[in-house]
């Protein structure tokens, strides 16, 4: 049944856990729509056939609705629309809540290509390699205009905005190759901004990642693109550590748990803080990015708003590296992600 409806509706194959989930609602919504529009159309035609005009000045009765009928006119569509909404919003909440254990990949859109960077160091252009059956979270940004990362086979789409990070996630279920489109119009070669997700079985992915980390230059996907060149050797965490020193972050932010001019970075990631305005914030990726770009927007209570903006001073890959570095600073454990299988 699923396969039949999917083919009838021209939907691409369901290559992620979310695709299977959301398509059920798709079928329900489309079938209701088809039935309702046909019923209204047929109703009108039936009434025409039944009540066609026989004489020029034919008399008709004056018909007024009863309260019951009007209540039904409101209740029936309301019932359907609200049930669509409830089901759809439930799925949407799933989609906007990445699991904690998800593997992160940084995605940067630029006119007109996609660039992917793994916290472990490797990066690639146009081809995103992910393991099957493991949740993957994408952290997206753009170097120029707005782009939108769209994988029809996964049923996911997320805008990539300049100057901030957005996120989405998926668990790919079928190894294979799936096209990535840019869905937000971005200029001359918008329709040529095409990438590919390659879903590898878990062990193969681990082996690939290990190979990349070994720095086998001939197997690097990365091409040398001057502006956002990220050194293939060294993980993002290491790059972040270097940047934290060279940009002067560590002059105010300690990494050992002691508060200096700014909050310490130790255990900062996902810590819940109160701002000076008394609002709760969680130090997740969007917050950390915002704090670098617009430090006075949400100042943690107890600190002075003295941090300068790093807007224009940090490139998107550098921001990503700093965020990864902050994420790595844990007192309880070291969360330097390492491949689960394959030898280094």
């Amino acid at each position: 049944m699923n396969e039949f409806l999917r083919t009838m509706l021209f939907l691409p194959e369901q290559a992620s856990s979310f695709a299977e989930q959301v398509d059920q609602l798709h079928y329900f919504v489309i079938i209701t729509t088809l039935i309702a529009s046909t019923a209204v159309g047929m109703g009108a035609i039936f009434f025409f056939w039944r009540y066609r005009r026989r004489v020029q000045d034919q008399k008709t009765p004056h018909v007024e609705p009863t309260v019951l009928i009007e209540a039904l006119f409101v209740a029936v569509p309301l019932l359907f629309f609200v049930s669509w909404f409830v089901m759809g919003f439930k799925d949407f909440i799933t989609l906007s809540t990445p699991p904690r254990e998800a593997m992160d990949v940084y995605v940067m859109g630029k006119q007109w290509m996609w660039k992917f960077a793994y916290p472990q160091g490797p990066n690639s252009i146009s081809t995103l390699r992910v393991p099957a059956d493991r949740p993957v979270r994408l952290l997206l940004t753009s170097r120029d205009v707005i782009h939108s990362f769209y994988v029809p086979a996964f049923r996911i789409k997320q805008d990539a905005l300049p100057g901030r990070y957005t996120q989405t996630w998926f668990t790919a279920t079928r190894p294979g190759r799936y096209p990535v489109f840019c869905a937000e119009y971005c200029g001359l070669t918008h329709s040529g901004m095409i990438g590919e997700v390659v879903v590898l079985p878990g062990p193969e992915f681990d082996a690939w990642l290990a190979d990349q980390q070994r720095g086998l230059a001939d197997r690097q996907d990365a091409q040398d693109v001057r502006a956002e060149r990220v050194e293939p050797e060294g993980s993002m965490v290491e790059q972040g550590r270097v940047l934290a020193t060279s940009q002067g972050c560590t002059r105010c932010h300690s990494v050992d748990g002691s508060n200096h001019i700014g909050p310490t970075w130790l255990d900062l990631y996902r810590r819940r803080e109160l701002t000076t305005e008394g609002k709760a914030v969680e130090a997740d990726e969007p917050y950390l990015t915002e704090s670098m770009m617009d430090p006075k927007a949400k100042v943690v209570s107890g600190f002075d708003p003295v941090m300068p903006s790093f807007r224009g001073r940090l490139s998107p890959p550098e921001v990503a590296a700093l965020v990864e570095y902050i994420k790595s600073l844990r007192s309880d454990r070291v969360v330097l992600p390492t491949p689960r299988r394959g030898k280094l």
Partner: protein
Amino acid sequence: MSTAPVPASFVPGPEDPAPGPPHYLKDGTTVRSWLLTVDHKRIAILYLVSVLVGLFLGGMFAMALRLELLTPGPTIMDALTYNRMFTLHGVTMIFLFMIPAIPAVFGNFFLPIMLGAKDVAFPKLNLLSWYVYVIGGALALWGMVHGGADTGWTFYTPYSTTTPTKVLPILLGASIIGFSSILTGLNFIVSIHTLRAPGLTWTRMPLFLWSLYGTSIIQILATPVLTLVLLLVATEAAFGFGLFDPARGGDPVMFQHLFWFYSHPAVYIMVLPAMGVISETISTFSRKNIFGYRMVAFSSLGIAFVGFFTWGHHLFVSGQSTFDAGAFGILSMFVGVFTAIKVFNWVATLYKGAISFKTPFAYICGFLYFLVFGGMTGVAVATVSLDVHWHDTYFVVAHFHFIMVGAVMMAFLAGLHYWFPKMFGKTYHEGWGLVAASLIVLGFNATFIPQFLLGNAGMPRRYYAYHESFQALNVASTAGATLLLFGFVIIAIYLVLAFRFGGPAGPNPWGSRGFEWVTASPPITENFDGEVEVTGTPYDYQEDQPSVRVTPEAE
């Protein structure tokens, strides 16, 4: 008709009643008498000619786009031309045709007549609105010829502020046209409040006026936001203020909020008057009172109100918070409910009627089907999780074309055929009317149903080149568009012939009880030759005549 902006060649038929004051088309035949007229009917004709020019241009752009999309690669133009072309198509169709089409043409013509008034409240303002529209339209068209923007009609920043193409004239043109829309809205609201004839209570008012009232509220409240945001983009593009540039503290998403705060209600600026036309025509062709008059009337205001709180459903994948997405999602459902109320009441109006299947009725059937299908797919794309897949794909393109081109165009054509005898005093060829209507309904389906499927398959919109697997559906869509074009050509031919050679229509050819049908066809400049008093509703088929009493003025 579009070929005759100034019907100076209009020849009065021998059947015209000789005595009495001349009708509005004969009351002055010089170009000057047209360009300086303050008669709402003549202004409506000026608008009719201009929106038909807009429709013609927009339609030609659409055909060029469909031809380009016949093959996956380059077909008849390069990528830059294509990108400009879809921008021009959107801008012309929305700002030059859709928004003014029904309110400024049929609204201007029939609002005062339905009120039993001689003109709108501010006749000179009315003429000004047309000039503002023409100036804005001319500026936008000039910009299209000299460079042309490639941003899409949505002008999303920061692309629109950094593109090398010329966006300024088009942005300025569109914001100027906005003022025309505000002036018309203002005029209509004041007219409805102050010019209703004795006896015309709010609950006796034709539903077309209720829908225009709702439309006018949106025009007055939402259009200034569009003007503002387009000017902000223009200043940023010209002087680089950095309002939408994150590198300088701006916010590109703020543009989307401001833009959709207007542009979503703008959909109801287009759809509400269309719904009004359907209320008028469906009653006439079934010879029945409107089922649930109050529900239909109040749902117009409901749509106008809720329409202001749904703009965020365009931003589900833009990084807006999950809570906001939910709030905008549920609010969007209410628009669907208000629309459903109208649809059910219209269909129920047919029950026990005496239905006559004339050309306007064919368009009513098309309208009902397109509105339900387009509306429900609209609720579907407002269903948050489903929108993630559909957002910015051809599914969305097909959905809003079902509403704007399907439903609104059906209503425009229904109105044009329904009121043509009143506006020009001539009858058109009924057989060709039905042929063209069937071609158009078929053509719309053939054009846009493949596009729904393309969206399902994952083809993003505004794609110059596409994957080969999408070709079959694209070819089907282009074939449908060709059918559509034939339909419009047929209409243009028989309406021009009817205007020139059509037989006399008589004051009330449809046997309607609508107030506008008590006037002569075409109406005289003063609309009525006396004092007007309304004694009932415009949908009362228990009476033999419209419930309007005209007492000749004592000289």
